[in-house]
């Protein structure tokens, strides 16, 4: 073990800045990062064990005890539950004879839950040893388990692959693209290198001006003007970085997965354009661990681009040097927050930074850094190619261009749609074949839960901004129990915890929702939830905490009747349950659990 770990550390230059990669490699090699491994890594890197442990324990996919030879990570996001996750869970547990959270005694199989893995249009889905299994059923689980007993490699457990590059030799996944609508930008026609060639014929300021004029705004959800971000960064001096945020973790989002699969060249090309514009030589694409199955493919694309001299030294003979590496995450939603992503890329806990300074001033390795979303970089390429006026011709006045939507839930045609900004929710529902809709969750759990009375609203930054997640919730769903509670459990798990309001209020709010679901809520609980959610919004450090109360606040606002039907109009209601409270002690001492009241 020792030699192997030391060679891993050597391969990453013996620097704690690459601790994520070291831990990822150790976990992959030994199915865990044991205490001995931590001790060795600490002493080799010259840091304390506490330092290594703080990074290790932050991420979902690092374990102290070995995961099973087959490590199942079942997605428990809302769409997975809607599409029958509990049947799949039940079948796994029955077959394996263990519960989720456990490993079989023979070490064959471990069962764990994980947050959204970006497959919301093909749920229930799970990762088994980083290989994606979609549209799981009891039958499929039985077959998978029998294959496990036979010792088959996971890759050999299926032989039908998804469309497009999903069937590429280096990918070979069953994941489907489900591209339902192509627009003219990110999923339209694309010729490798055309955008960059044009960019390199312009001055870097001209490139920035073109992006500024296009009114392109960040596609991750926050909608910050891309050109302005680049302009800020270009004014800084010294080494700079370009980072691509490919950590889409907002439940219900999967459009970046499709771009990574079908537009990998375009993403890297867009990063190179950004590098040229701001004066950076290095780029990092931060890819979520859930998309590990794309690793070999992404690296082959990078190699291809280097061969074509679209990356590397003296790019296209214009004297511009730029190259990119892929950094993997290890399971943490908060790393989608740009400063947390930077911390993670530096081998640390993915805790958001305080601002100021902003990443454009002090980002990766303390150098000025531009971070943009996958879709933003793709858009950049087409804007440079076709000009800002062309781009502004699409969408609305304030939201130029097109937007990719990841649509899932109760609809006939879940998948990825490239639309022009400005489409109404009603039109969107018609487009995806959704009927009898109770609500649409716009922009994921951190967005808003929209009632039918507001379906005439527009998908646009000025009205309903979104990173692209759209979850359609049918009339037959129990909105509070199936959706709101699931979202609050998600935030409770995914809060980094380093700012205490986000950490605690998510726990507190989740409990209050549970109280209501359990039929012990009263009217004042609703007022409290709103007030406490407000405190979390006002005081939390990053976007996660500032929006984590949205599942509660937007549903109380928009679906008050559902709550009122569940809460009592009483002054006080105890959450205390005498029978539950005495159960255990009666059993321990051996007496009947009877109360004479």
């Amino acid at each position: 073990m020792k030699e192997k770990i030391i060679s891993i550390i050597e391969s990453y230059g013996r620097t704690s800045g690459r601790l994520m990669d070291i831990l990822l490699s150790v976990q992959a090699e030994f199915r865990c990062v044991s205490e001995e491994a931590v001790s060795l890594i600490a002493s080799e890197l010259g840091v304390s064990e506490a330092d290594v442990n703080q990074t290790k324990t932050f991420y979902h996919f690092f374990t102290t005890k070995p995961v099973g030879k087959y490590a199942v990570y079942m997605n428990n996001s809302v769409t997975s539950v809607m599409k029958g996750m509990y049947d799949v869970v039940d079948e796994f547990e029955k077959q394996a004879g263990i519960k989720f959270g456990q490993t079989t005694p023979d070490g064959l199989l471990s069962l764990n839950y994980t947050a959204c893995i970006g497959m919301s249009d093909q749920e229930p889905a799970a990762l088994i040893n980083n290989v994606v299994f979609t549209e799981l059923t009891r039958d499929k689980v039985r077959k998978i388990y029998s294959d496990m007993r036979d010792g088959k490699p996971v890759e050999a457990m299926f032989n039908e692959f998804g469309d497009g590059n999903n069937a590429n030799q280096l990918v070979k996944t069953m994941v489907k693209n489900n591209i339902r609508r192509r627009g003219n930008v990110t999923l339209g026609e694309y010729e490798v290198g055309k955008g960059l060639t044009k960019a390199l014929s312009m001055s870097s300021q001209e490139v920035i001006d073109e992006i500024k004029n296009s009114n392109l705004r960040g596609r991750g959800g926050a909608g910050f003007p891309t050109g302005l971000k680049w302009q800020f960064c270009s004014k800084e001096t010294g080494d700079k970085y370009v980072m691509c945020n490919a950590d889409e973790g907002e439940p219900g989002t999967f459009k970046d997965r499709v771009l990574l699969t079908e537009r990998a060249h375009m993403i890297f090309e867009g990063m190179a354009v950004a590098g040229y514009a701001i004066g950076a030589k290095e780029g990092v694409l931060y890819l979520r661990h859930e998309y590990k199955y794309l690793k070999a493919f992404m690296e082959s694309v990078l190699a291809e681009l280097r061969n074509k001299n679209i990356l590397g030294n003296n790019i296209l003979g214009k004297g511009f040097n730029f190259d990119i590496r892929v950094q993997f995450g290890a399971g943490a939603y908060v790393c989608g927050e740009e400063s947390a992503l930077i911390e993670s890329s530096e081998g640390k806990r993915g805790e958001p930074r305080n601002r100021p300074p902003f990443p454009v001033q002090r980002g990766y390795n303390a150098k000025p850094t531009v971070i943009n979303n996958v879709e933003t970089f793709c858009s950049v390429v087409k804007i440079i190619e076709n000009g800002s006026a062309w781009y502004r011709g699409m969408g609305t006045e304030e939201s130029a261009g097109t937007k990719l939507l990841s649509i899932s839930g109760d609809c006939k045609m879940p998948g990825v749609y490239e639309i022009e900004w400005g489409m109404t929710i009603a039109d969107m529902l018609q487009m995806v074949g959704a009927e009898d809709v109770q609500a649409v969750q716009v922009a994921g759990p951190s967005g808003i839960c929209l009632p039918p009375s507001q379906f005439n609203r527009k998908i646009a930054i000025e009205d309903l901004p979104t990173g692209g997640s759209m979850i359609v919730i049918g009339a037959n769903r129990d909105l509070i129990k199936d959706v709101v509670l699931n979202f609050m459990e998600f935030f409770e798990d995914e809060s980094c915890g380093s700012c205490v309001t986000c950490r605690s209020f998510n726990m507190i709010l989740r409990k209050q929702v549970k109280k209501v679901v359990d039929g012990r809520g009263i009217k004042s609980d609703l007022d409290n939830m709103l007030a406490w959610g407000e405190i979390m919004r006002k005081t939390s450090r990053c976007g996660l905490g500032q929006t984590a109360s949205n599942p509660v606040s937007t549903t109380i606002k928009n679906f008050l009747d559902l709550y009122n039907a569940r809460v009592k109009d009483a002054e006080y209601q105890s959450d205390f349950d005498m029978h539950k409270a005495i159960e255990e002690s009666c059993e321990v001492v051996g007496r009947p659990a009877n109360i004479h009241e």
Partner: protein
Amino acid sequence: MSKPIIATASLAGCFGCHMSILDIDDRILQLIELVEFNKSPIDDIKTFTKQCDIGIIEGGCCNSENVHVLKDFRKNCKILISLGECAIMGGLPAMRNGIPVKECIEEAYLDGPTVGENKERILPNDEELPIILDKVYPLHEIVKIDYYLPGCPPRADLIWKAVVALATGDELNIPYELVKFD
């Protein structure tokens, strides 16, 4: 109101808060003028003989009997006051919260250093005994509580000021030194 009637009880507490009531010293003579006592260890009335105005409770709820007494107080008192840290947040008895009940009981009756002879490993299970709860509960998590007087114990002056304010309807101004959690 006419002379208000007060009841008091100590649940999972140490009687320290009741000691602090007595610490009002000679003002106890004024107190007798101001209020009437009903069910309370102070006058040894065991059961409610009439509807009371103010119930003052020390200690949290650690067993089924505490819950019973607390609910009885809620029924018989217009105003309920949580007196002291144990009533407000469980206090020292709540340090067992989070430890499985099984471990607590076994430590107390079988394995602890102060356990005497218990060769048969008998655990108290007579049906007459109160049943231990899974954790110690603050009072307000079981019934509605109207006022809280923190401290371990609450300072005698705080209790005095609060009771006088309630009995006379005067405004309660609490100086900094009187609100303490220890």
